């Protein structure tokens, strides 16, 4: 399941909902990305995410399908927000459930790596002097995505 929304979400509630009433799941891994006050050496006061409506959903669905084809998942969830977010707020959530923990760990890590380099979102940071800067692509994200062959 994928969701693209401006609203804040709660990681715990989403995990709860995904696994409620199920007794076949042995392992649940979640990743939550949060807005932090410092990035690449400068202070951040808020973050705005632009996205490409339509293509975003398509890309996230493809990434989720790919994860489900590579790992034996019993449930998966991707939530990504857009719009303006305050410090400490969640930006993205990935949850994977499996009978085995390596499967859940690897799939969650993969989802984040591919999402970072494929899903059409762009971050703009505001700093304490009011300047808005587009966040630059990170070499480490490109390298991380390469671990999982296309």
């Amino acid at each position, binding site marked *: 399941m994928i969701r693209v929304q401006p609203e804040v979400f709660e990681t715990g509630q989403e995990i709860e909902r995904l696994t409620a009433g199920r007794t076949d799941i042995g392992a649940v891994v979640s990743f939550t990305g949060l807005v932090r006050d410092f990035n690449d050496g400068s202070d951040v006061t808020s973050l705005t995410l632009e996205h490409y409506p339509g293509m975003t959903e398509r890309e996230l669905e493809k990434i989720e399908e790919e994860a489900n084809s590579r790992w034996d998942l019993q449930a998966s969830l991707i939530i990504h927000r857009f719009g303006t977010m305050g410090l400490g707020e969640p930006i993205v959530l990935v949850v994977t459930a499996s009978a085995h923990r390596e499967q859940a760990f690897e799939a969650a890590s993969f989802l*984040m790596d591919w999402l970072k380099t494929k899903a*059409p979102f762009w971050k703009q940071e505001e700093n304490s002097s009011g300047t808005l800067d587009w966040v630059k692509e990170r070499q480490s994200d490109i390298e991380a995505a390469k671990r999982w062959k296309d």
Partner: protein
Amino acid sequence: MKILYFAWLKTKLGISEETVACSAEIRDVDSLVAWIKSRGPQFQEAFIDMDVVRIAVNQEYVITNVPLKDGDEVAFFPPVTGG
């Protein structure tokens, strides 16, 4: 066809969306880019380094030149930075 710009491409050009008709001059991605660059210095500058411009046709990434037709949706944007 519909042309979309995102992130700094949008702010640099001051355009988020426009409609362009296909023609003998604008028939594929490469000729569309050439035509856009010919429209003025800010266009020329925004598209000067195609290594930092990603292209999607009908919401799918394209990395080679592909033919275009009216009704297509073409998007130009920087490398993605979500997550």
